[in-house]
């Protein structure tokens, strides 16, 4: 679950970490009260969007007075920001962060994230702040340091020394870094973060460290205990994905033309792969889960067929806990209520497979039966090609 910059900074500020003062506004009318509250007239207006590269795309602007701040807010809110990360469709701006402008003497990079292979948290540091970390990793990998905490203990003196030295921080700045690093570590654990990235961490004009920009992603599995963090689990999702989640379906919209309805995440991916293997493209990832109800299967079918790009559908079920006859009933229900405008290929295997197949055959519906996974994928690819 992604947080907006202003939400991330609120968490950092609440942890006592040095972030520039700022206020978020949702419309131009909120600008003057916000500036009064902040006690400033000039500053920087930052479009709030889940993307990097906002500055270059015109989403970050300096203002000299309240009128300019208002005009910028007016212009930014409602606009579609297209950055190198968003793709041509861009992202819609709904809020603007008004912040004090910082003078920058030096830009650094600090991120805290999970290292899966080491089953530990990792700090990623670089003195090349302000750039994309993948860009740094590609151009100057020696300018990146990974440090691992001793899990369950505060960061060690050795850890903090190494970190500060690598970033070229000494004296007061090294002390400030130690506090910031420990603060980030505590926040990461307390708030169930998956990524806590400060880019840039700056040495400002007055010789202090300041967390200028922050990207925070929280673990969706921990949302039940982080509801006050300000994040919206649905903020970054397609409406059909949100609708699917209500029925316990895991759905991701893709660009192809064969809709897939599968049980299990691994089999759902493997089904997409085999469709691609036979020269067609999957329109979606859809895992109905291990214990889906007939109603959920019907819903899954509706979501798939509501995608106008879908030219054919492949149902691939290996019934374990979920019996094939339940899937069959869900499909027949869906076809009876929403109609069937594209060819449908069904492959059933596992628990109650004979009952499931009998239901489909007896339904009188125009459903293409597949003997196994390969047969199913071949037939689905063929029907789409035949239509094209």
């Amino acid at each position: 679950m992604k947080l907006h910059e202003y939400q991330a900074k609120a968490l950092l500020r609440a942890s006592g970490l040095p972030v520039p003062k700022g206020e978020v506004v949702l419309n131009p009318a909120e600008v003057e009260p916000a500036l009064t509250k902040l006690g400033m007239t000039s500053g920087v207006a930052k479009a709030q969007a889940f993307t990097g590269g906002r500055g270059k795309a015109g989403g970050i602007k300096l203002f000299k007075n309240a009128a300019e701040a208002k005009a910028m807010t007016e212009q930014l809110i409602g606009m579609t920001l297209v950055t190198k990360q968003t793709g041509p469709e861009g992202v819609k701006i709904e809020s603007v962060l008004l912040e004090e402008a910082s003078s920058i003497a030096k830009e650094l990079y600090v991120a805290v994230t999970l290292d899966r292979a080491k089953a530990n948290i990792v700090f990623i540091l670089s003195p090349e702040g302000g750039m994309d970390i993948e860009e740094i990793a590609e151009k100057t990998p020696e300018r990146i340091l990974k440090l691992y905490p001793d899990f369950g203990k505060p960061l060690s003196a050795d850890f903090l020394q190494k970190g500060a030295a690598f970033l070229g921080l000494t004296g007061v700045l090294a002390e400030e870094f130690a506090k910031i690093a420990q603060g980030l570590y505590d926040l990461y654990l307390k708030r169930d973060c998956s990524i806590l990235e400060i880019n840039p961490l700056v040495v400002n004009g007055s010789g202090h460290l300041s967390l200028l920009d922050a990207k925070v992603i929280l673990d969706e599995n921990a949302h039940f205990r982080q509801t006050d963090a300000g994040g919206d689990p649905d903020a970054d999702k397609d409406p059909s994905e949100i609708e699917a989640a209500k029925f316990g379906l895991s759905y991701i919209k893709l660009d192809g033309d064969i809709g897939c309805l599968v049980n299990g995440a691994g089999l759902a991916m493997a089904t997409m792969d085999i469709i691609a293997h036979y020269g067609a493209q999957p329109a979606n990832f859809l895992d109905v889960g291990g214990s889906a109800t007939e109603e959920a299967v019907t819903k899954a079918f509706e979501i798939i067929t509501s995608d106008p790009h879908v030219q054919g559908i492949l149902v691939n079920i290996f019934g374990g806990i979920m019996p094939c006859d339940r899937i069959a009933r869900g499909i027949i229900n869906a076809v009876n209520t929403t109609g069937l405008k594209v060819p449908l290929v069904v492959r059933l295997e596992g628990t109650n497979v004979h009952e499931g197949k009998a239901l489909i055959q007896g339904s009188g519906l125009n459903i293409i039966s597949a003997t196994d996974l390969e047969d199913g994928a071949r037939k689905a690819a063929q029907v789409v090609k035949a239509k094209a």
Partner: protein
Amino acid sequence: MAILIDANTRLITQGITGKAGLFHSQKCRDYGTKVVGGVTPKKGGTEIDGFPVFNSVAEAVKATGANCTMIFVPAPFAGDAIIEAADAGIDLIVAITEGIPVIDMLKVHHYLKSKKATLIGPNCPGLVTAGVCKVGIAPGFIHKAGKIGIVSRSGTLTYEAVHQTTLAGLGQTTAVGIGGDPIHGLNHLDVVKMLNEDPATEGIILIGEIGGSDEEMAAEYIKSHVKKPVVGFIAGASAPKGKRMGHAGAIIDGNSGTAAAKKDALRAAGVVVAETAAEIGAKMLAAMKAAGKA
């Protein structure tokens, strides 16, 4: 012979009075597993469908001699349930629960370092020693006692591999679903090692997916240690970058964790890579024939 579970396994279920917990306890018992009881706090002293219920894992172990547990406890409490099982001296903990916060699993992972318990999962289907013992939610009837050991991050792909090896006449020793979460207990490498050392296992199927580097680590080991035929399959070749594909751990971060990189690592280790999930059984049969084992 097989690995991890056999006729000596004495299973309890944490969360046995829940719908899924009870249903799968019954299915495991039907398969022949010795299900000796279950745990639900505050319901100790009662009985459910013939299973004695205890308040804690420690009580259950004392009364039943349980050495294995499967966990159906809801995600917010599942981390603590794993720790409770480890503290009670359980040897094998199989966590079925999906959706446990990563930080909880990190705490569990570091806590288990000082314990003897082995963890499988979470977010996994469990494991089956064909014809002998089933722990978890896999459909029992597709298994057939035989020669192939299976390790997989995905539930339904495990069933697919089991089904195909059954149809191919090869059968299985033990099929292990290690789960789809980023932080989990046994990984591919651990299970491949066990299968390699198990005399009854003559061939190995390794099923992975995008995300992490579990498969690459196992490939390193296979390259230098495994003489048995190994067939690999990686799901997610067509998955877009940066999107979590159902499993919490199935995501390509930047350029790492791609299906192509994993397939390359497996091929470099001498593993026969199945291009689609439909040909896992056929590839295994061919590899076994080539090795004179089928």
